[in-house]
């Protein structure tokens, strides 16, 4: 608890005496903070939270509001991404929140990093004390101050440290040697979130510390991606299983199997030779690929020109056709194979409801899970419709798609790459819809802000809201840009540090591992002394308990309400960053924050496996494992490269390899083993 107000003191003076003073008054702000919380939230249950070691320090007393507002521009609320974020975690000062609810919701993620930062701060502090020179302190101070300057002012006012505040104000003028840096700092002050902190604090790291932090970041990053894998595999597996089911049902003697589309030029016959097959199917696949390419380019052009409504209309037609027509074909298969007597009245009624509800939930509003269900079902329907292609054509098509995917995503002028970039440039113009319906794209993109891993359930809409909500807009965009650019530049060694941070710190948060932009950890702060990780942990428990009790935050929504709160807010932040790649698909939204996988990937994974399912169960299983392995490998690469990658190539190559290996080696082998009763 004593740590509650500590944040300000460090900024206020940096002189040992000041620190001592502030720590002596530590309790006072505490008492102030909780009343504040109570008034905002109107819930007495908050008090324990407010008393927690990692409290929000209230900068929001009426007098300081103005200053805080402008200050809030720097950094959005960690939990919900809203500006202004007037509170900061008092323990580590590294994160901002707009309200206590947000902090409470974020605490489960933040506490570890918080403890780590605090520990690092202590260490730093000790080092500094060892130096003992006032100059050193003075120098360090401006650096740390810039990240949270005005807020600290306000807070010091809160704590009754007006005198300190004055001293602080004087300082920049007096620190001539630091003039350049101060200017630098000022220049960066307007820049969005997190990044500004880097330049200031980086210099304070020793080489080993940097290495340690980078290592920690990397580990956390990997862990995050591991979690993502689990989340993304679920819809993919469901989609694959549905496709297998459709294929198996339709193969059980249905007259209504999907047929080869009429625009293909070549039809395989059992008598045709291999060369005929290859050339003919190549032509067929080429036609289909050409269609895909043309449609992709048209979409990119429409997007670049800003004809979003046209795009939405187009996608709506596609979705309606898919749900209605393919649903009809599938239903025919089902009722014939299962021998269900069904009348036209009931069927058209059911299809109409199915398709209309799907359109509403995908394009308008709806619970997230329903949207995901629809998208998964849509993908499996699409895959089912593609099983009508002849066998050779399917393989050719998949092989060509791999090539196309590589070109489109990785080449400098690949349409998908252009789409990603243009969406980054014209952030506003990316309607959430595009994320949703990009059924045509074949790429996986890295999580932009991994922050919201927890928030998976949240909708993108929040972002939308943000975008439309006027002022916060610009912040959001700039922020997104900053991030994006940060990541781009990231590959360059030292600059990489900052960019990495911008990308990764969110990762850390997500993984619940102490992350925190490492730089933060090194802010000198004497007050933190009594704050120990253990304490923080207790705090967490406290908080958790609180949660299960009456919700501290909202008057509605007890526990889950709270949790939900934590989700969506984050997402908004994320979503802004997500502007980076509109190509991501919504399906993965569900998989959690950042990782995005195009529905196109779903579809063609399923096509491959559906094709395998038409042959044999052994092949089916082998291909499923191979495709999922390839997907994992892609995600792994994603973790390394941190940029949009094509998701098809590895998976499809694995799948095809395993298909032919199984079909021509394993299955005959098993056929020999089976009768002779040998079990391996």
């Amino acid at each position, binding site marked *: 608890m004593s740590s509650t107000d500590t944040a300000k003191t460090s900024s206020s003076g940096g002189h040992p005496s000041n620190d001592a003073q502030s720590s002596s008054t530590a309790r006072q702000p505490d008492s102030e903070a909780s009343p504040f919380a109570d008034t905002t939230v109107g819930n007495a249950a908050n008090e324990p939270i407010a008393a927690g070691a990692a409290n929000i320090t209230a900068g929001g007393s009426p007098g300081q509001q103005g200053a805080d507002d402008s200050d809030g521009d720097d950094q959005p609320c960690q939990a919900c991404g809203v500006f202004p974020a007037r509170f900061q975690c008092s323990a580590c000062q590294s994160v901002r929140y707009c309200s206590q609810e947000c902090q409470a919701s974020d605490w489960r993620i933040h506490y570890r990093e918080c403890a780590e930062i605090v520990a690092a701060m202590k260490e730093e502090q000790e080092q500094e004390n060892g130096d003992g020179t006032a100059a050193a302190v003075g120098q360090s101070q401006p650096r740390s101050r810039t990240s949270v300057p005005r807020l600290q002012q306000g807070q010091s006012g809160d704590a009754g440290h007006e005198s300190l505040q004055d001293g602080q104000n004087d300082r920049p003028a007096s620190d001539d040697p630091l003039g350049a840096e101060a200017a630098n700092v000022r220049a960066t002050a307007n820049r969005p979130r997190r990044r500004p902190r880097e330049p200031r604090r980086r210099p304070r790291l020793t080489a080993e510390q940097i290495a340690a932090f980078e290592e920690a970041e990397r580990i956390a990053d990997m862990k995050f991606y591991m979690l993502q894998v689990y989340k993304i595999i679920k819809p993919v597996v469901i989609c694959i299983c549905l496709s297998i089911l459709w294929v198996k049902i339709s193969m059980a003697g249905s007259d*209504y199997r999907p047929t080869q589309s009429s625009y293909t030029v070549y039809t395989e016959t059992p008598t045709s030779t291999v060369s005929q097959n290859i050339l003919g199917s190549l032509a067929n696949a080429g036609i289909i690929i050409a269609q895909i390419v043309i449609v992709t380019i048209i979409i990119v052009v429409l997007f670049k020109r800003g004809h979003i409504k046209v795009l939405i209309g187009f996608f709506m037609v596609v979705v309606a056709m898919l749900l209605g027509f393919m649903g009809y074909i599938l*239903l*025919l298969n089902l*009722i*014939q194979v299962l*021998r*269900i*007597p*069904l*009348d*036209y*009245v*009931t*069927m058209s*009624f059911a299809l*109409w*409801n*199915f398709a*209309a*509800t799907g359109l*509403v*939930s*995908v394009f*308008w*509003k*709806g*619970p*997230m899970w*329903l*949207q995901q269900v629809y998208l998964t079902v849509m993908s499996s329907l699409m895959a089912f419709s593609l099983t009508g292609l002849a066998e050779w054509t399917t393989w050719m098509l998949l092989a060509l798609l791999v090539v196309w995917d590589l070109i489109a995503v990785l080449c400098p002028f690949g349409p998908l790459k252009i789409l990603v970039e243009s969406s980054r440039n014209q952030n506003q113009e990316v309607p*959430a*819809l595009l*994320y*949703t319906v990009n059924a045509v794209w074949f790429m996986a993109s890295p999580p932009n802000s991994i922050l919201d891993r927890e928030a998976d*359930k*949240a*909708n*993108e*809409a*929040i972002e*939308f*809201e943000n975008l439309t909500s006027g002022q916060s807009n610009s912040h959001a965009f700039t922020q997104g840009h900053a991030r994006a650019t940060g990541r781009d530049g990231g590959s360059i060694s030292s600059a990489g540090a900052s960019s990495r941070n911008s990308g990764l710190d969110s990762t850390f948060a997500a993984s619940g591992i102490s992350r925190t932009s490492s730089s933060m950890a090194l802010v000198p702060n004497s007050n933190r002394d009594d704050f120990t990780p253990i304490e923080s942990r207790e705090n967490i428990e406290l908080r958790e308990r609180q949660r299960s009790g009456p919700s501290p935050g909202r*008057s*509605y*929504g007890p526990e*889950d*309400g709270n949790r*939900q*709160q934590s*989700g*969506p807010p984050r997402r908004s932040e994320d979503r802004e960053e997500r502007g980076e790649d509109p190509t991501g698909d*919504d399906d993965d*939204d569900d998989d959690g924050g950042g990782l995005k996988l195009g529905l196109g990937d779903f579809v063609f994974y399923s096509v491959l496996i559906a094709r395998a399912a038409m042959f044999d169960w052994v092949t089916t299983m082998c291909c499923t494992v191979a495709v999922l392995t390839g997907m994992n490998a892609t995600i792994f690469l994603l973790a390394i490269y941190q940029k949009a990658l094509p998701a098809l190539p590895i998976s499809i190559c694995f799948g095809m390899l395993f298909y032919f290996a199984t079909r021509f080696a394993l299955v005959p082998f098993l056929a020999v083993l089976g009768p002779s009763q040998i079990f391996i």
Partner: protein
Amino acid sequence: MAKPIERMGSHEILVVSRKLFLGGFCLLPFLWVFNILYIWPVRNRPDLSPQVRRYLIMSGVLSIAMFVIFATWYGVFVDHRLNWGARGDTLTVVLVKGV
């Protein structure tokens, strides 16, 4: 995509609920069910307009009514389709083999 219902204002919820409710009359009882599922997590929010609750209840009642109607119709159809002869066959989507 839509934003989560938890983040909507009470007025917005009211609008959504009304639209879904009215949309349900286009022979779309799924929208009524959808309405209930969608609004369900926030049904106890104190600031929610009582109107929303009315819509939800109406949606539930009407969707159940629709379900009963179609279930009845389907039962009648399955029971009598063989007696209806040619008319029954035209109504059937896929003639069931063997029966």
